């Protein structure tokens, strides 16, 4: 859907250095003057494709755009080996094993009931980027643990859910949050046909699409009782934490992590006042590692004669280059401080934090 664009930024070392220093200020000055936790505006619409079970389209104002279609198919549950696991679970229940509840869920639903494919323009299906993005999205969906259970019909039948993610624009900035939020919206709009047969019979469904049961139901107040996970990209520069980095900002990121979260369902019962629960965290290799390093005047053969006396011995050169290293742009190496990581997680999960804000924003989207 788009010509293969380069993931690499075309900024010079001097521009990178400028960007990096303005992002390391307290508070950081971002190129588009956003606050550090502020998100870029986006346009979203759901239920755009009537032949899918659920669909959504999100467009950021920088022109990146994605469409997600969710399709459900009826599938027979493989019974091979399941009976044995069931028996084990039964034993566990009898023994009063505290993990029994968990195991019973495992026997009910399987991770293979969910399949995600990501299409990125300019990449083949088996290239690493689409597969990595697909894995990140699937991982978060599966580890939230509630989605698989919703696909269970009875002992012999289940829904198989296919989530197809299409990136329409060239992958300008790291497209993970875009794809994840679009998937989130599509899943919220997903409905499955209503079951009209007896629970234990071979399933028979209502032809009336208007009667279909939404995958994520709303309660009496019109709020979702549970929600699919959302994934955010967070980058750090120095001690600054920046949410939703743009392409240029990513080019100077010291480290980038992807945080997936869901709203806590046990919020009222628990003593901790967190609004969100982390379901997946992953370090992402920042594109800044591929940026060209700057060359200080003192060691640049082109400007050497003008700014410095004739070259001295190689030992002096070494000393010189390490002394001026801080003055020019150098691609960042190394990871993230643990305290910083903890701070990010706190900013996402705390009540009134970034996570809650994002989900509230997305809930405001009307179909």
């Amino acid at each position, binding site marked *: 859907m788009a010509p293969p664009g380069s993931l690499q930024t075309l900024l010079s070392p001097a521009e990178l250095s400028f960007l990096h220093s303005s992002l390391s200020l307290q508070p950081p000055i971002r190129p588009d003057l956003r606050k550090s936790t502020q998100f870029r505006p986006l346009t979203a619409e759901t239920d755009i494709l009537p032949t899918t079970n659920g669909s959504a389209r999100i467009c950021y104002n920088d022109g990146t755009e994605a469409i997600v279609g969710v399709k459900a198919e009826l599938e027979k549950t493989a019974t091979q080996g399941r009976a044995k696991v069931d028996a084990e679970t039964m034993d566990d229940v009898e023994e009063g094993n505290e993990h029994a509840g968990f195991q019973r869920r495992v026997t009910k639903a399987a991770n293979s009931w969910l399949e995600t494919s990501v299409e990125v323009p300019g990449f083949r299906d088996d290239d690493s980027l689409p597969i990595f993005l697909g894995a990140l999205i699937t991982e978060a969906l599966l580890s939230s643990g509630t989605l698989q259970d919703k696909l269970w019909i009875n002992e012999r039948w289940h829904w198989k859910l296919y989530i197809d993610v299409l990136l*329409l624009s060239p992958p300008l900035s790291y497209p993970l949050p875009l794809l994840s939020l679009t998937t989130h919206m599509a899943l919220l709009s997903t409905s499955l046909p209503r079951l009209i047969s007896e629970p234990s019979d071979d399933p028979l469904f209502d032809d009336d699409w208007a009667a279909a049961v939404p995958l994520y139901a709303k309660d009496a107040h019109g709020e979702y009782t549970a929600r699919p996970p959302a994934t955010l990209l967070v980058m750090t520069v120095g001690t600054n934490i920046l949410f939703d980095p743009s392409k240029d900002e990513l080019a100077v990121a010291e480290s980038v992590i992807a945080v997936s979260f869901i709203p806590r369902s046990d919020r009222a019962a628990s003593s901790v006042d967190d609004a969100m629960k982390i379901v997946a965290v992953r370090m992402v290799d920042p594109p800044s590692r591929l940026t060209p390093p700057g060359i200080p005047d003192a060691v640049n053969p082109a400007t050497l004669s003008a700014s410095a006396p004739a070259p001295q011995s190689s030992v002096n050169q070494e000393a010189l280059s390490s002394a001026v290293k801080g003055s020019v742009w150098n691609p960042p190496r190394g990871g993230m401080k643990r305290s910083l990581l903890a701070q990010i997680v706190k900013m996402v999960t705390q009540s009134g934090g970034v996570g809650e804000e994002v989900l509230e924003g997305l809930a405001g989207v009307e179909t």
Partner: protein
Amino acid sequence: MEYVSPEGLRLDGRRPMEMRQIRGEIGAVAKADGSAVFEMGNTKVIAAVYGPREVQNRSQQISDQALVRCEYSMANFSTGDRMRRPKGDRRSTEISLVIRQTMEACIMTHLMPRSQIDIFVQVLQADGGTRSACINAATLALADAGIPMRDLVTSCSAGYLNSTPLLDLNYVEDSAGGPDVTVGILAKMDKVTLLQMDAKLPMDIFENVMQLATEGCKAVAQCIQEVLLENSKKLEYQRGP
């Protein structure tokens, strides 16, 4: 199977010479130079045009005209049953070629030497007539990108089932196995640029069916012209006095 009822109604309630509802919208992909969504009933196609711009692969550069490239792809969720299809399978390669040739026939490539125009077509929903919908979407997107063309190419299909010529086949009628004639015309110049039929049909009936498809193309052309006019008005309004 009965595709036309004794009352003369088709499976989806249309008359034999009735088209599905068509809708065009310009500017669907923000990043592209030109883009459009085109719907024919339940068939929904999105097209994006990039260019004219510098040729990416120098060895493909043509010194006296523009290089036109086209990529057609079908979303996994576009069909009734979800289908996993690899990129560049035979069918999509063939349709890419058909679209490219049709569009190339009307783009004034000689005005843009040593440049490249990329047309991307993505089928979001397939319900018969994807080929026609793709060509119509590509025309809209090319016009949106401001690429000089001789005329607007529009396309429509027609078939022949239950000894009745039918205009604008949907998926059920398309997969009935009867003859399916896809026609692409330059509406104002009244010239045929695309003609495909994958079955046999007596000559006199073929004439009828083709005539019907051509009428369909003209109807599409009118719709596309309205969309373009509306878009131009909007642009002029946005530009101000």
